[in-house]
Structures are given as structure tokens and as C-alpha cells.
């Protein structure tokens, strides 16, 4: 793990879980797995705080624990999962587009809480939805929410957390030092039978609220005291968001939109159909989808598109002949068998990302040289100058610039064993994998810088922000009591015009930084998935 990654992880932890969790988390990230006492010692944090921080990290699936051979428990942080925090908005948004508001809230609650039991998640979501439906006085039914939950599980967007190994009943053996968490493949996507009847409750007043909380606490305590008397049928069965499945969805969307941009809407629709058909049969890290015959594809095409079989066959052969090689022909039976080359597609997307980065940073001429080397694989300096049709001096300049940025590599091939420069070939090449890694690290650094900048901006204007919040609160409370328009105006004027301008500028800047963070993450996603597919055997 690199410094850039650790820095970004630390910033993300600090922003979402506070300083202490950040301190503990960053320490385990840096040092690898560690026992409790050592963490407390090395970070100089009191033991109870370390425990609390570890509880939070484990709850959010960012840290796992393991019993070491010598009998103590070691805690290990997963930097890849910490970095996923950056992608939470994307997951939530995807859930919204696929399963509506209910799906959005379910995924959001799961992400906010790390893991939850189905009953608590359904209740919480139903309550939240009911609150938004205040106007029409309706309430959200638990059954409706839980059916969405089941659909999310069926499509593998949510899966069951590994459960602790149950001690054999009746055995008087002492509880183990650390529970062993096991995933059973069979149960991973099975939903416990729950009969959830009822409707979401609305919070009416603060008194009511307190009662609710108190009763909730009481039920929790009861549950804790007497495990045999379980208050909820699905107690102990926790669910978490399956990021891999979301990534598969993102990848499919990226492939579809790439096809739509390169060719046209209809071919992207065909590819979409193919991907949907193989969604369940293909594992998320397979190199290509299961072969599909053109007849099968024809039958599964959405009815809205009036594509005849003949047109479909033409499109398929066009897609298969395309130099992008997103779609490959794997056989001729059944009217032609077709696969989607997922790894190839990711590699193409990654190299396209690299090309556009070179273009935007170094200009179109540099990008031309870069693409040229990418296509011809190895070129001598003289050949680059000739093929790129750029004046020799400029071409050299650009080539060296790319070389010094490590986007282009140089390979020496000596003709004689003495490595004399005059008798050596110098071949320029592009290594997509290592350049992608370089770019990925730079992306992590970029996001870390963006977060730092955002924190700086908000810190600079802290006083102003507090003031505006206070004034907003006063106005809200006065409106509630029915104050006059003139009074409201008067209070509003407590923020002067320059202050208002400053606030607006701050808001604009923060928005822009946040949007950039989201969009850099899209690049990070493409590069990460390409690197992970090309390094795995």
C-alpha cells in the first residue's frame, strides 16, 4: 500500500467516523494486523477508546479480526474497503435507479450502519418513507419495504454477513476468545422468513420520540439479558451491501455506454441484453460471459425495439468485427455464438482513459505520439518522429516529456555486449498496466488533496457558516411561531451582503470539490477494475 492510499484512507475515516477511529484505523493500515494492546500502546490512545474505535470499524466491515497462533486476537484493516467509502453515493444512486426510493433508502441505511438485521433495516426505511409521505397522511407498509429488500438480495446486491459459529448446545465450554465467522455459500442469499406486519411510524413530538427510544432500549436490553427469549425472529442475521455486485453493474454500464458512443443506440441495446442474460450465469471476475447464440439473444431482446432477426445478425457480426473486440464470436452453432470479452473491454476502457489523460495534460500532439506507440507497441525514436508527422525536434521534446512522466518506457537493446549507445536500439513502448497504476495513485492523491482543500475552505469560513446556521434556525423558529414579514426581513439582514457573497462562493467551491471527488472516483473505478482483472490469473 502506498502513502497516497494511506493518506486518503485516513482522511476518509476522519471525515466519517471521527478522529479517534482515524487514528486507530490509520495505524492498523500502516502496520498490518496488530493485537489490541499494541494498538493502544503505539497510538497512545486509552484502551477503552481503542476498543470503541475497533468496534466501529468492525461494524462497518473495515476491520476484521483473527485469532493468532499464540492465542491473542489480531485486528487487520482493509484499505480497499475504506476507499469504497468514496463510492457510497454511487451505490446509493444505483440502488435508486434500479429499485426506486425504497431501494435507495435500504442501501443507504445499510451503508450508514455497516451491517443491519433485516427487521431493523425494514423498520427504519419504512419509518423514513412514512415521514416523507407526511402530506398525504399515508404510511409505508412494512411488507412493501421487505419485498424490495428481498429483491435486492435475490439480485445479490445485498448479502448475508458471515455468522459466528454457534457453540454446540448444552456444552459448558467457555466462550471462545474470538468468535469464528463463517460464510455459508448456501445461506448467503437466502432471506429468513419474516412476517413483518405494520406500518412505518411517524415521529410526532420530542416526547413521543423519547418514549420510542426508551422502549427500543428496553427491548434491546431484554434481548441481551435473555438470548433464549428472542424478540426478533432474525436476530443475529446481519446483511451488508455487496460492493462486488455493484461494481459488476458499474462495469456493465461502462461497457454499454462505450458501445453506445462508438457505434449506436441499437448495438448498445443488444450488448445490454447480452449482459443481462449472462448476469446470473457469469461470475463477477470472469474474463468473458457465457456464449450466447443469436437465437437466444433475439428472444430476449426487449419488445420495444423492433429489430428483425436479420438486422440483429448484421449488428452482431459488425460488433464482432469491430477492432474494439468488446464482442467476440466463439462458435457458429445456433446461428452464431457470441461472448462479451469483459477483461478486454476493461483494458480498452483503461487505455482510453490513459489516452485522454495524456491529451488533456500534454496536448493532442503528445496524445498522437502516445497512441502511435500504443498501437505499434515498440518504436525507435526516429520512427516516432516519422510516423507522428510532427517536426523532429518537437517530437523528441514530447517523447522525452512523456518518458520523464513515466507514461512511456524505454527499452535498450544493445547490438554489441559493450552497451555502446551508438550500437544500441532504443525502443519506446507503453506499458498500460504500470501506467494505469501510476495514474491510479495520482487519482488517490488528487482525491486526498480535494478533501484537504474542502476542509480548509470550510475551516476558513467556520465563523460565517455558524452564523448563517444560527440565523436560519432563528428564522425557522420565528416562522413557526408566526412572526411578521418585517421581523423576518430584519433578521435576514443580519447577514451582510459581502457575507452573503462569501457564503455563496464557499458553497460553490465546496460543491465543485465534492463533484470532482465523485467524478475522480469514476476514473478510479475503471483503473482499479482493470488492474484487478489483469493481475488475477
Amino acid at each position, binding site marked *: 500500500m502506498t502513502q497516497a492510499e494511506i493518506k486518503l484512507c485516513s482522511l476518509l475515516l476522519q471525515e*466519517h467516523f471521527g478522529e479517534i477511529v482515524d487514528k486507530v484505523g490509520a495505524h492498523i493500515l500502516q502496520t498490518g494486523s496488530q493485537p489490541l494492546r499494541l494498538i493502544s500502546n503505539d497510538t497512545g490512545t486509552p484502551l*477503552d477508546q481503542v476498543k*470503541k474505535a475497533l468496534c466501529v470499524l468492525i461494524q462497518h466491515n473495515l476491520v476484521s479480526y483473527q485469532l493468532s497462533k499464540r492465542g491473542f486476537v489480531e485486528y487487520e484493516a482493509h484499505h480497499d474497503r475504506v476507499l469504497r467509502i468514496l463510492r457510497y453515493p454511487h451505490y446509493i444512486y444505483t440502488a435508486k435507479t434500479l429499485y426506486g426510493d425504497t431501494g435507495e433508502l435500504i442501501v443507504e441505511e445499510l451503508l450508514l450502519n455497516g451491517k443491519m438485521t433485516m427487521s431493523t433495516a425494514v423498520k427504519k426505511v419504512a419509518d423514513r418513507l412514512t415521514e416523507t409521505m407526511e402530506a398525504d397522511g399515508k404510511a409505508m407498509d412494512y411488507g412493501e419495504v421487505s419485498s424490495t429488500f428481498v429483491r435486492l438480495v435475490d439480485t445479490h446486491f445485498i448479502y448475508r454477513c458471515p455468522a459466528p459459529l454457534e457453540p454446540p448446545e448444552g456444552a459448558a465450554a467457555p466462550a471462545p476468545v*474470538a468468535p469464528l465467522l463463517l460464510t455459508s455459500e448456501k445461506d448467503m442469499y437466502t432471506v429468513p422468513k419474516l412476517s413483518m406486519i405494520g406500518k412505518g411510524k411517524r415521529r410526532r413530538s420530542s416526547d413521543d420520540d423519547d418514549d420510542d427510544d426508551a422502549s427500543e432500549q428496553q427491548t434491546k436490553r431484554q434481548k441481551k439479558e435473555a438470548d433464549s427469549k428472542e424478540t426478533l425472529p432474525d436476530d443475529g442475521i446481519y446483511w451488508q451491501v455487496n460492493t462486488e455486485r455493484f461494481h459488476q453493474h458499474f462495469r456493465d454500464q461502462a461497457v454499454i455506454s462505450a458501445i453506445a458512443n462508438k457505434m449506436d443506440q441499437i448495438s448498445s441495446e443488444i450488448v445490454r441484453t447480452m449482459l443481462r442474460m449472462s448476469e446470473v450465469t457469469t461470475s463477477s471476475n470472469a474474463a468473458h460471459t457465457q456464449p450466447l447464440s443469436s437465437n437466444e439473444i433475439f428472444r430476449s431482446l426487449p419488445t420495444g425495439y423492433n429489430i428483425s432477426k436479420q438486422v440483429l445478425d448484421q449488428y452482431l457480426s459488425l460488433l464482432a468485427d469491430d477492432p474494439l473486440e468488446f464482442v467476440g464470436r466463439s462458435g457458429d452453432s445456433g446461428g452464431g455464438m457470441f461472448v462479451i470479452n469483459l477483461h478486454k473491454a476493461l483494458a480498452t476502457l483503461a487505455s482510453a482513459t490513459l489516452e485522454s489523460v495524456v491529451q488533456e495534460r500534454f496536448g493532442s500532439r503528445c496524445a498522437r505520439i502516445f497512441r502511435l506507440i500504443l498501437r505499434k507497441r515498440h518504436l525507435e525514436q526516429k520512427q516516432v518522429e516519422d510516423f507522428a508527422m510532427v517536426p523532429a525536434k518537437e517530437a523528441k521534446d514530447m517523447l522525452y516529456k512523456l518518458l520523464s512522466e513515466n507514461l512511456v518506457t524505454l527499452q535498450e537493446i544493445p547490438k554489441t555486449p559493450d552497451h*555502446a549507445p551508438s550500437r544500441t536500439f532504443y525502443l519506446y513502448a507503453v506499458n498500460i498496466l504500470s501506467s494505469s497504476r501510476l495514474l491510479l495513485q495520482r487519482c488517490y492523491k488528487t482525491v486526498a488533496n480535494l478533501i484537504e482543500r474542502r476542509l480548509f475552505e470550510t475551516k476558513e469560513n467556520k465563523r460565517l457558516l455558524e452564523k448563517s446556521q444560527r440565523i436560519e434556525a432563528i428564522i425557522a423558529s420565528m416562522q413557526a411561531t408566526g412572526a411578521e414579514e418585517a421581523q423576518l426581513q430584519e433578521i435576514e439582514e443580519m447577514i451582510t451582503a459581502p457575507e452573503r457573497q462569501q457564503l455563496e462562493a464557499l458553497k460553490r467551491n465546496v460543491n465543485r470539490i465534492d463533484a470532482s471527488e465523485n467524478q475522480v472516483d469514476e476514473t478510479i473505478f475503471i483503473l482499479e477494475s482493470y488492474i484487478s482483472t489483469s493481475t488475477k490469473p
Partner: protein
Amino acid sequence: MSATSKGRGRAAFTFDIQAIGFSRGDALPESVSQPSPVFPNTDYKPVPLKIGDDEDYMLALKQELRGTMKRMPYFIAAEGEIQAIEKYSFKYKTERDKKLVTEWIPDWRRLPREMKPRKKKKLKVVKQKKTNIPAARSNVDVLKKIEELEKKGDAEKSDEETEEKEKKEDEEEAEEEADAYDEEEQEEENDYISSYFEDGDEFGEGSDDNMDEATY
């Protein structure tokens, strides 16, 4: 090497300098001996960000998520944050924070045993006092004292025996726990989580240290 005999400067290269783009008579660029600037000039302006409904919604989601996370019980703020001016509203804020903290009770079945705040230590402190006081007063009972001293001396001799002794202690403790069970239950009813923060303070006392080392 022949290069040194040719003199200094450009002639020191063993290859034709024109191959890398310097014509005859050009000055070589000066060698750089300092880090590149923190904010280098960019030749090209960055591309504007994507704008659209999707992006706007994700932006809103991101900011909302960040705000909500800060109000979740998982957010542990540093305690050292002392405000320059104590505000009246601060009192309410801390109250609200307390309420939030009590909302989350981790599922101890899924966590290592050492994560769970233990009550034992509290009891042990009480126990120590109990044993100490009679020891101090038992001047009259010489026999007992001698016995105790003997025990102590034995314990120091070998580690094995200390372990044994600790086992005994544990047993005693277990017994005592059974006695003090009602007391503990009462405590739990009052406020479970408040004790969560307390046990750490006692960490570092001599007797505790001994115990912990034995378990490792």
C-alpha cells in the same frame, strides 16, 4: 576511459548528442537540484466537470451522507475539543450526543471477547480492599500472617506457581461474582454504556498488568 581524455563538458558523452535533439553549439540545460514546484504551471486548462441531473443528485447524496455520518453513533469525536467560548447551545449538543451514543449497542456475539467492556475489574478492586484490610488488622493472628507470607514467598519463586495462584484467584473471583451478581444486575439497569468508558481508566494498575501478561 577515452571520454575523460577529451576534456570536460559536452565531449564527455559517449554518444552523438545530436540524436537527442541538441544541435552543435547548443547549451545543455542546467541540471536541476531542487524539487519540482508544489503548484506547477499547467499548459492546458482542466476540462470542466460533467454536469447533469445524475451528477447533481450524487453530489447531494454525498453531502447528505457526510452530514448523516457525523450524527451517527459511530462517529467518535475527540474529547479534547474545547470551544473558545462556551455557548449555551453546547449543553444541548452534548446531551444529544450522549443520547446518540446510547443508541448503539454492538452485537457482542460477533466481536472478540476482549472488546466487551468487563465488569470484573471493578469487582477486583473491591476484593483487594477486602483482603488488604484483614491482612493489616491480623497482627494478632500470627499464624495466619505467617501462612500468607509463606504463600507470597512461594509465589515469587516460580512462574508456574503464580499461574496456579492466579487460577485460584480466578476461581475465587468466579465465586464472588456469583455472590455479587445481583449487584451487577442493578448496575446494568441503571446505565450500561456509561461503564463502557470507565474500565479503561483502571487499566495500568499493577495487578491488572500481571493478569494480562499471563493470558498472552
